């Protein structure tokens, strides 16, 4: 089982207040919460705010369920970079007597994993992952490539924590750009500025940072150093419940990582690259409740009008 990372006293107090107000709903597992009415309302509005901001590029809208074919996780090398965060789906395989034994152990909350076998599915670790094989299946891309809006999708990271901003299952609001390298970089830079202004307009003290992914192990330290030196990942960070600021959006330039894995090419023979941006929907929502108070009715008018687009 993954190590539990306790929250700081401030994070624990914020979580307690969110649960007390039933903005988040407690489950038995750290980092997995239900959403109360007001929390969900703000999550939806955050997603819509991003949709409005991205409308000028007229992205193609696609949606995928929060499970991914295991083959795709394997294809993109996720288990090399993030083996500690992956969630794989297993299912029962066995005889009637084994089913009975499994049930008996489950009733006593004992270990019944020996009756489980790997399925062809894993939990989706990033909302953009199902987009790449879909685009690859269409054949060579026209010049200029595509912009794909994958919506607000549930993703999973196996990292139980006491910080309410570090959930195991949460929504990423993701948009993907696939095209010529310079096109992809220009799109990422456009969104970087756009995201900062979007978050500041709703009263968040957002700032900008060069970042790295939480790669695993020593190979991961090399990947992180390389990512940082090439400035492939940027984050917008906001103070939620201290002491460190929390990333609420990230902008990732993958170079040819996904296009080479899936053979995505442009019709004119130019190499295709990809970038994605992801807004952490629950994190932005948490930051808004932290900044403006737990009672939606008392939020500043300008923040409400920006979120509700009225």
């Amino acid at each position, binding site marked *: 089982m993954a190590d539990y990372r306790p929250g700081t006293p401030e994070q624990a107090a914020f979580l307690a207040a969110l649960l007390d107000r039933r903005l988040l709903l407690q489950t038995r597992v750290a980092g997995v919460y239900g959403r109360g009415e007001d929390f969900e309302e703000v999550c939806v509005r955050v997603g819509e705010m991003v949709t409005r901001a991205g409308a000028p590029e007229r992205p193609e809208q696609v949606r995928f369920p929060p499970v991914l074919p295991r083959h795709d996780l394997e294809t993109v*090398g996720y288990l*090399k970079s993030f083996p500690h965060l992956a969630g794989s789906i297993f299912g029962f395989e066995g005889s009637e007597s084994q089913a009975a034994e499994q049930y008996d152990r489950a009733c006593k909350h004992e270990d019944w994993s020996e009756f489980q076998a790997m399925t062809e599915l894993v939990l989706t670790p990033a909302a953009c992952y199902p987009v790449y094989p879909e685009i690859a299946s269409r054949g060579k891309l026209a010049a200029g490539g595509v912009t794909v809006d994958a919506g607000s999708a549930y993703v999973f990271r196996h990292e139980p924590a006491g910080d309410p901003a570090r959930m195991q299952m949460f929504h990423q609001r993701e948009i993907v750009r696939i095209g010529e390298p310079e096109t992809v970089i220009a799109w990422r830079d456009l969104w970087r500025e756009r995201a900062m202004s979007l978050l500041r307009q709703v009263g968040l003290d957002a700032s900008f940072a060069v970042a790295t992914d939480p790669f695993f192990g*020593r*190979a991961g*330290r*090399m*990947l992180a*150093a*390389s*990512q940082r*030196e*090439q400035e492939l990942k940027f984050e917008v960070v906001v103070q939620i419940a201290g002491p460190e600021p929390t990333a609420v959006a990230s902008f990732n330039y993958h*170079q*040819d*990582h996904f296009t080479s894995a899936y053979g995505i090419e442009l019709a004119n023979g130019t190499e295709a690259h990809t970038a994605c941006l992801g807004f952490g929907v629950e994190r932005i929502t948490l930051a808004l409740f932290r900044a403006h108070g737990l009672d939606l009715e008392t939020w500043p008018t300008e923040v409400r009008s920006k979120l509700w687009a009225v």
Partner: protein
Amino acid sequence: MNTEIRKLIADHARLAVDISSLADDASLYEAGMTSHATVNLMLALEGSFDVEFPDSMLKRSVFESVTTIAAALAELQPEV
């Protein structure tokens, strides 16, 4: 040492060109070595030369060329 380094580059760096066409100080990144290929090369170098790169060496510049890799290995294996 450079011969062995070149062999490991050929096997792991997935360059767009033949390593034999590159000078010792030519950039492997410009020849198409990706971040993930760099990790594979790093692990292969560690296995082959029986060294462990410290965190301070886990950066792109160390794996930039045959020359920089040889310099790093010489630092880790002074007797070679």
